Structures are given as structure tokens and as C-alpha cells.
């Protein structure tokens, strides 16, 4: 391809931006004046490159961005890379052959990427670029137009957000641990060990559900991971494949759905371990689920929990925390349905949860409206 490229402009012709346009009628002159007005008013930097990666035009924003004037860049008579991109941020020299922008001499319009440029005064700054080829009448590529934005502030904002999320994770975990400690101190010697163990296990289930949320910055959680974490005997263990059969597609869950579902599964598991299929060595649990569309863009999760191989089941005489959470709260929280059946062959539970659209109140104001 390089052989087919023709120089966009000779060096002499390039000495003044768009000078070739000046040849000809006054209408061309008027066009040039308009183009210069547009280019020099643009807040984004625009570079026009020939097929040797020499810069033959840059607008005012590009001069401000790099610290170099167009005249200086033209006088250097070298690839733009050697002027604004010659050193890696760690100080090593950055030869043209390794340059992604150069290698990505765009065959396609609007190729995008991020790089770190060097200002004339020596400081590094991150940029986002969009590059498109310029073609001659025969569609040969004769140059490149590159649009460049300084993305320092975006990078800094992303870094601040990362730190804030780390701090949020830290505080939530700390608060859970603090609550656990307060409970331990408060009830020391006042309650049975068994009750304390139930409390600690519920705190751990809540904490596990939060671990899954942390992985996606609290935006959403993987359905599969929520189920796996809830059914694993402890944080460092895997789900026992001899006991559980998990089957269903993954999905992104709203944090509220993730937490309540994790707590519901924890209660089912605790019950199974105490009275149901998991209380005997040969008992098994099948957790199967599917997703289907309910209305525009929203999906519903249908999840089934089926125990078998356990001791004969008798309906409980008293409904506790678990059945209250699952059968009453969960349907109310998500406008869904939940039924627990105490069949003699094993407990089954069916959940229908319309999946809440991801997001939270005030999110648009915090993050700025997303492009449609």
C-alpha cells in the first residue's frame, strides 16, 4: 500500500495552510477563509499528515496542545511522531516503528485510540485520537487526518472514581465487620452458640454478595457468580459439584437483586443443610434457571431450587426468617413471585424475579447523561 501513496502536498506548497486552494477563483479563497475559521475555532486539535507521517497542517488548538507552531513543525521536516511522541512516559526513547498511530495508518475511517504525547516543555499528557485516511481521486491513500483531544481530566476523574470505589468497598466491608463485632460483644454469654453461628453465617452471605458487586464497581453482578458464591460452603471454597447441579445462562443483575437473591439462596441452603437434602450424604440440589423477555427490554429470571435424596420432608410448624424473606419480601421488592413447596420428596422453591433495569436514582446527574 505505501507504494501507491502519493504525497499529499509538496513541502513548498504546504508552507501555508491550504495554500493550494488560494490558486483559482475568489470562491476558493472564500472557502479557505471559512475552513481556517472553522479549524482555528475548533477546541479539538487537528493534524493533517502526508504519507511519510510528516505533519503538513495543524490548527491553533494543535499548536496549543503540543507547544509547537505549525511553522516550527514544518521546519523540522520529520515525522510528527519525532516531535510529540518521541519518548515513552517511563523515559525510554519511542522509535517511530513502535508507534501505534503510525502502524495504524488507517485503512478505515474513524480509527480510535489513546496515546501519551510529550509537550514541547517535556511534560507528558494523555490524548485520545481519531484517525481517518485521505484518498486521492483514484482512492489511493495519500495522507491521514488525525483529531486529538487532551484527556488528562477524564483520566484524573476516572482515577478519582477508582479511589472512591475502593474507599466505598473498604467502608462497606468494615461496617459489616463492625456490626459483626458489636453483635459478638453484645451477645457474649447471653445467647446460644448456635444462634451466633446463624448470625455469623448470614453476615458472611451478605458480605459475599457484596464481593460479587465490587467486581463490577457496584453497577451490577454476574448472576452465575451470585449463585456460586451463595452456594459455596465458604469464601475460599468452590461449589460442591457432587451436591449441586447449576444450570442456566449468565445475566447482569442489579445490585439490589443480587443481594436479596444471595440472601434467599443462603436461607434455602441453610435449611437444606439442617433439615433437607444437604443433611444426608446422598442428597442433592438442582438449581436451574432461565431468562425470558417480559416487556420492552426487560427480562425476567425464573429460578428453581429442587432438593432430592434427603429425608422425608414435613412442612415447618413455624415460618422463620428465611420463608418470610423469600415468600413475602422478595416478591414485594421486585414485583415478582416466590413459592416454597414442602413436598415429601424434597423442598422446592420457584422464584420469578423481573430484572430491575441497571442504575440508581441520581446516576445521570453524577455521571452526565449518556449518549443515546
Amino acid at each position, binding site marked *: 500500500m505505501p507504494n501507491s501513496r502519493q504525497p499529499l502536498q509538496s513541502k513548498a506548497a504546504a508552507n501555508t495552510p491550504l495554500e493550494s486552494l488560494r490558486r483559482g477563483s475568489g470562491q476558493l479563497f472564500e472557502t479557505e477563509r471559512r475552513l481556517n475559521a472553522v479549524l482555528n475555532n475548533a477546541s479539538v486539535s487537528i493534524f493533517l499528515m502526508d504519507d511519510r507521517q510528516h505533519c503538513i497542517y495543524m490548527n491553533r488548538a494543535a499548536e496549543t496542545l503540543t507547544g509547537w507552531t505549525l511553522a516550527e513543525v514544518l521546519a523540522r521536516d520529520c515525522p510528527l511522531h519525532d516531535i510529540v511522541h518521541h519518548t515513552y512516559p517511563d523515559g525510554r526513547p519511542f522509535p517511530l516503528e513502535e508507534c501505534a498511530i503510525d502502524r495504524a495508518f488507517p485503512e478505515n475511517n474513524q480509527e480510535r485510540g489513546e496515546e501519551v504525547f510529550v509537550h514541547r516543555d517535556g511534560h507528558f499528557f494523555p490524548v485520545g485520537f481519531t484517525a481517518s485516511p485521505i484518498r486521492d481521486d483514484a482512492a489511493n491513500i495519500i495522507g491521514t487526518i488525525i483529531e486529538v483531544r487532551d484527556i488528562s481530566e477524564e483520566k484524573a476523574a476516572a482515577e478519582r472514581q477508582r479511589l472512591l470505589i475502593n474507599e466505598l468497598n473498604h467502608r462497606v466491608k468494615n461496617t459489616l465487620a463492625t456490626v459483626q463485632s458489636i453483635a459478638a460483644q453484645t451477645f457474649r454469654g447471653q445467647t446460644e452458640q448456635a444462634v451466633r453461628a446463624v448470625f455469623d453465617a448470614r453476615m458472611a452471605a451478605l458480605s459475599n454478595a457484596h464481593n460479587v458487586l465490587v467486581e463490577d464497581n457496584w453497577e451490577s453482578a454476574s448472576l452465575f457468580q451470585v449463585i456460586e458464591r451463595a452456594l459455596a460452603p465458604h469464601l475460599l471454597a468452590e461449589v460442591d459439584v457432587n451436591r449441586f447441579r447449576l444450570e442456566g445462562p449468565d445475566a447482569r443483575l442489579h445490585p*439490589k437483586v443480587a443481594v*436479596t437473591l444471595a*440472601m434467599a439462596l443462603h436461607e434455602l441452603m441453610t435449611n437444606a443443610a439442617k433439615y433437607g437434602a444437604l443433611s444426608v450424604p446422598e442428597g442433592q440440589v438442582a438449581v436451574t434457571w432461565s431468562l425470558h423477555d417480559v416487556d420492552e427490554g426487560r427480562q425476567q429470571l425464573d429460578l428453581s431450587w429442587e432438593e432430592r435424596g434427603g429425608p422425608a420432608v414435613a412442612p415447618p410448624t413455624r415460618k422463620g*426468617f428465611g420463608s*418470610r*424473606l423469600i415468600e413475602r*419480601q*422478595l416478591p*414485594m*421488592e421486585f*414485583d415478582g413471585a416466590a413459592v416454597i413447596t414442602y413436598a415429601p420428596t424434597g423442598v422446592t422453591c420457584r422464584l420469578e424475579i423481573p430484572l*430491575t*433495569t441497571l*442504575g*440508581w*436514582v441520581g446516576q445521570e446527574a453524577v455521571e452526565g447523561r449518556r449518549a443515546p
Partner: protein
Amino acid sequence: MTVLLGRRVLLVEDESLVAMLAEDMLLDLGCEVAIAMRLNRAIDLVRSEAFDLAVLDVNLGDAHSYPVADLLFERGTPFLFATGYGQQGLEGTYRGVPVLQKPYQAEPLEHLLARLLTGGMPLREGGTGLPPPCRCQDTQAGGNRFRADQVL
């Protein structure tokens, strides 16, 4: 306790585990409790049933409970907000409403509810004392979310 005995209380709270706790506290105070965990359910309940009192969680995850507050203002039903943020977290026109600081505690809850029953309606900040006409219907008709504080 006696003043709250048998009172019908609407509890609007979007977190299952927290709703269970608040419900238990209200039941222990002798109240009859109706729970709404979603905004549309809360609005339906206020429109169709009569309540002596209401406890509103401010942040319902994907919405605020302010449209419910507007309806309660219109009906003259005393209510309080429950929030972790305190009074400063409320939007301007609602700052006259008593706030129960989360996490829920039985004693402050009882104290505030009793005071609401004997002391009457909370006032809107800078209001005339008369509740403004309810505009919640606009939400459903127009599709755009109506925010009372922007209009007043």
C-alpha cells in the same frame, strides 16, 4: 405506646431486610402495618386506603419517595422520612418533615410517630400551611417525571 395502638401505618422501604426490621418495630408498637417496597405500589396504597401515619424511606433505589409525600400532604396524613442522610439530604420543600435517622431504632420511631399524631401535619418549607394541589397524576399522564420542588 397507647396513642399508637391500632393505628394504620404505611411503611415505604425498598430493601427487604430493612423493611422486615421496620415492620417488626411498628408491629411491636401495636400498629397495623402495610408495606410498599416500590413507588407505584406506595402510590396505589395511598390512593386506595386510609392511613393514620406513614414512614417513608427517601431513596427507593431507582426513585425518590417524594411523589408519595405529595399525596400524603394532599390527604393530610402525617408522615416522617427515614433516611441515612438526615434532614440535609431532603429536597428543599420537604425539609419541614420530621426525619428518622437510619438505622431504624424503636424509641425514636415511637417518639416521632406519637408526636406526629398529637402535633398534626408537618409543613412544607416556606409553604402557606395549606398543602398544595397534588400533581402526581402528571407523572403518569405525561410520562415525564414530575418534581414538586421545581414547580413551587
